[in-house]
C-alpha cells in the first residue's frame, strides 16, 4: 500500500453499565457485570431471560423527539456514540472536506427492534399474513434496509465519501473497522466514522438464540451468568450497545495535533466454510486470520502483549479460540493476558467487536488490562492466563482482538501504541 497509516483519534461508547466511554471503561476495569433479568419485555416465556441492557435514556442522551420517533434503538445508540467520538476527537465537521470523510457501521441484526414492533402493528399481533400497509410507519424502509444506520451517521457528520453498513454477523464490529482502515490506507478518504451497533434484546432475537440454546439459561443468578473460560460456563448472554470511533490517517491527525489512542496496523477475516453456527475444533481459520493480521502489521507473534478475546462462554467457542491462539501465537500465548469483557457487557453481536476495539485502544492508552469477570473454576482444557476478576496494570504496546460468528466468520485486528516505528 501507500505507506499511509491509520490511527484512532476519537471514542464514543454506549454499553451496558456505561452510557459513555468514561463510564464504560470505569465499569469494565472494575470488573462490574451488567447482566440482569430482561426489563425490555416480559421474558417469562423464554429459556434465557437475562441480558446486559443499556440503561439508555434517549432524552438524556441528547436525542431530539424526531430522532426518537424515526430511529431504531440501534440507530439511536450509533448516533449518540458518533456524537461522543466526534467531540472526543476534536474534529469539526464544518472544517473538513466532506468528500474525504466516510462511514462504516457494523451491525448483525440491524433495525430488528423496530422491524418487530412495526410487524406487530401491521400484522395485528401476528394474526395476519397479508399485513395491513395502512399502519406502516413512513420510516419502515429504513428498518427493512439497515444501511440506514450508516446513512444516519453520515448525515450527522456530513460524510460524503464512501458510506456503508457491514453485516457479517458477530464479526461485523471488527470488520467495519477493518474496512474503514482499508479505505484510509488506500487513500480514498482521510477520516472515517466507523464502529458497530446492535440492539438485539427483543423477543424475536432472544427466541433465535433460545432455539439453539446458545444463550445462558442462568436466570437465577443473572449477574454471574456469563462465565467465559470457566469450567461451568453455560453460553453467552445477549448484550446491546454501540461504539463509534474516529479513524484518521496518521499524518492528517498529527498535523492537527490530535490525541492518538492507538494505531490499527493489521486486520484480516477468514471463513471456516464449515457450519453456519458450528466451529471447527482446530480453530484453523481464526488462527489464519490472526496470522494474516500480524503479517499485515509486519509484526511477529511474540510482539502481542494482550489478547482481547471473543470469549462468549459457549462450550465450543472458548475452546476453539484457545486452540486458535496457541496455533497462531505458539508458546507466546501462554505468556500474555487474554481476557473477555463480554463477561461484563454481554454479547452485543455486531456492536461488540467495535466496543472491544475501543477497550483495546483504552487499554493501550491507560496501561490497564480489563479482566474476565465470573471466572472462578478454571477449565483444565483452557490453560491460558485469562485475567480473572481483577484488572491489571501493564504497559501495552501491541494488542490483538479477535471475533468469531455465525456464518463461520473469523476476524482479527492488531492495534499498537501510536507513534511506534512503522
Amino acid at each position, binding site marked *: 500500500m501507500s505507506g499511509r497509516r491509520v490511527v484512532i483519534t476519537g471514542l464514543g461508547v454506549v454499553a451496558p453499565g456505561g452510557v459513555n466511554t468514561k463510564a464504560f471503561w470505569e465499569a469494565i476495569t472494575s470488573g462490574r457485570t451488567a447482566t440482569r433479568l430482561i426489563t425490555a419485555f416480559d421474558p417469562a416465556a423464554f429459556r434465557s431471560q437475562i441480558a446486559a441492557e443499556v440503561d439508555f435514556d434517549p432524552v438524556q442522551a441528547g436525542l431530539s423527539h424526531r430522532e426518537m420517533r424515526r430511529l431504531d434503538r440501534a440507530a439511536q445508540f450509533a448516533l449518540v456514540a458518533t456524537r461522543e467520538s466526534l467531540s472526543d476527537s476534536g474534529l469539526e465537521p464544518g472544517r473538513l472536506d466532506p468528500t474525504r470523510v466516510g462511514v462504516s457501521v457494523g451491525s448483525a441484526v440491524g433495525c430488528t427492534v423496530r422491524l418487530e414492533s412495526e410487524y406487530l402493528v401491521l400484522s395485528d399481533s401476528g394474526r395476519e399474513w397479508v399485513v395491513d400497509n395502512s399502519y406502516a410507519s413512513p420510516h419502515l424502509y429504513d428498518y427493512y434496509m439497515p444501511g440506514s444506520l450508516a446513512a444516519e451517521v453520515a448525515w450527522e457528520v456530513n460524510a460524503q465519501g464512501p458510506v456503508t453498513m457491514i453485516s457479517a454477523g458477530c464479526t461485523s464490529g471488527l470488520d467495519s473497522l477493518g474496512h474503514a482502515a482499508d479505505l484510509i490506507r488506500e487513500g480514498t478518504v482521510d477520516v472515517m466514522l466507523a464502529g458497530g451497533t446492535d440492539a438485539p434484546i427483543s423477543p424475536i432475537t432472544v427466541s433465535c438464540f433460545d432455539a439453539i440454546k446458545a444463550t445462558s439459561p442462568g436466570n437465577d443468578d443473572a449477574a454471574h451468568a456469563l462465565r467465559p473460560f470457566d469450567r461451568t460456563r453455560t453460553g453467552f448472554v445477549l448484550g446491546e450497545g454501540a461504539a463509534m470511533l474516529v479513524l484518521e490517517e496518521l499524518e492528517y491527525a498529527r498535523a492537527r495535533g490530535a490525541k492518538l489512542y492507538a494505531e490499527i496496523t493489521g486486520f484480516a477475516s477468514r471463513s471456516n466454510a464449515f457450519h453456519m453456527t458450528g466451529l471447527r475444533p482446530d480453530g484453523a481459520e481464526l488462527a489464519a486470520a490472526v496470522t494474516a493480521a500480524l503479517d499485515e502489521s509486519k509484526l511477529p507473534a511474540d510482539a502481542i502483549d494482550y489478547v482481547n478475546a471473543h470469549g462468549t462462554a459457549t462450550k465450543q467457542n472458548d475452546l476453539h479460540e484457545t486452540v486458535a491462539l496457541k496455533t497462531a501465537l505458539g508458546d507466546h500465548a501462554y505468556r500474555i493476558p487474554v481476557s473477555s469483557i463480554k463477561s461484563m457487557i454481554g454479547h452485543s453481536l455486531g456492536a461488540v467487536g467495535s466496543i472491544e476495539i475501543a477497550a483495546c485502544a483504552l487499554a493501550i492508552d491507560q496501561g490497564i488490562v480489563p479482566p474476565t469477570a465470573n471466572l472462578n473454576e478454571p477449565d483444565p482444557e483452557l490453560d491460558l492466563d485469562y485475567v480473572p476478576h481483577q484488572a491489571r496494570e501493564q504497559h501495552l504496546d501491541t494488542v490483538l482482538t479477535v471475533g468469531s460468528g455465525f*456464518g463461520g466468520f473469523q476476524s482479527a485486528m492488531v492495534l499498537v501504541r501510536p507513534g511506534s516505528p512503522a
Partner: protein
Amino acid sequence: MTAAVVTGIGVAAPNGLGKDRFWAATLRGESGIRTVRRFDVSSYPSRLAGEIDGFEPTEYLAGRLIPQTDRMTQIALVASDWALADAGVEPGTYDTTEMGVATAGASGGLEFGQRELANLWSSGPQHVSVYMSFAWFYAVNSGQISIRHGMRGPTGVMVSDQAGGLDALAQARRNVRKGTRLILSGGVDSSFCPYGWVSRMSSRSLSTCDDPRSAYLPFDARAQGHVPGEGGAILVVEDAQAARSRGARPYGEIAGYGATFDAAARHGGGNGLRRAVEAALADAQAAATDIGVVFADGSGTPEDDRIEAETIAAVFGPGAVPVTVPKTMTGRMNSGGAPADLACALLSMRDAIIPPTINVRTIAPGYEIDLVIGEPRPWQPGAALVLARGKGGFNSAMVLRATAQVPGATA
C-alpha cells in the same frame, strides 16, 4: 497492481434463470414483470413485480438445506454454482484458503423472518425455527456460499441498498489485490412476502401502475416510480494472472470503482453521483471517451432520473454515450440489481451488443441522454460504466474494461 477479472457469471432474474436464458431474454426485450402471485397483493396500491418463475430449489439443493434457508439464499446458492461452472472452477482448482466471498444484501431472508415472527407471536418462542438465527440475518448468503464451496479466505457483506451490489464487487477486487485468488461476489435479494412488500412500499418510490408495460419507465416523461424485482447475480472475480495461468477466458476486468454519499439537505444538499462516476473513471485511469456504454441506475422516479441524466450528460457530453436500463425487464432487485447489470455489461462486451431499455417511449424533456430504447444496439466493445444508487444517498459506480483491453490479457 494485480488486475481483478470476472471469469464466471451466474444470474437468476425474473426474465431468465441462468446466464444464457437471462441474456437471450434481455436481448429480446422480454420482461419478467407481472402481477405478484406469491402472495395476495390485491389490497396494496402497488401490485407488480419481477418474480422469478420456475425456480424449484429441490432441483439444485440438498433437501436438508431447504428448511434452513430463505428463498433469496436458495437462489444465491444456485447462482453461485452456475458462476463457478461458467468459470470452469472445480473443487481443487484452488486451495480452499485461496478463495473468499463478498456479497451484498439489503433485507436478508425476510420471508423466512416474517414466518418466524408469525410463529413467535401466534404460538410462542418454542415455535421459532432452530434455523432462524442464521436464515434471516444479512450475512447469510456469504456464510452459506462459503460453506457450499469450501471457501476459507476473506469474507464480507455490504449493506448499502441498491448501491451495495457494486460495493461488494469492489470489496472482492480489494481482496484479490491483497492476494486472494478468487472471490465469489454479487448479490441476490427477494423478500417477496407481505411484510417485505409493505416495507418496500414505504419507500414511496414504488409505481402504483397496474400495466406492466408502463409501470417502470426510467427517464421517460411518464416515470412514476419503479417495480421491485427478485434475484440478482453472483460473479467469479479472479486474479488476472491466476485466471490466465489456468487458461480461463475473462469476460472483462473490474477496472475502476467509486462510492460517494449525497450531502443531506441540512448540509446544503448536493449530488454525489457525479463524484462517484469521476472517481471510478480516475481509478480506472479511463477518460470519459473510453466509456462505450452506461448501465444506468434508472430509478424511475423523476427527481432521481433527472439527477442521473444530468450527471451522465455532464460527464460524457449531451447524448454522447449510449445509456441503457435492462432492469426495465426485471424490476429493481435491490442488491441483486447492480450485479445483474455487471453481468449484462460483460456479456455486451462479449457479443458486441447493448441490451435495450424496454417500454420507455419518450425521454423526459431536458434529459440529454442517448437511451437505447426498444431494440438492442451494436457497439464496438470497450469500457462500460455501471451505476447504482441506494435510498438515503448511496452512489456507486464501477468501470469494466473488455478483456482485450486488459493489459497482458492477450499475451
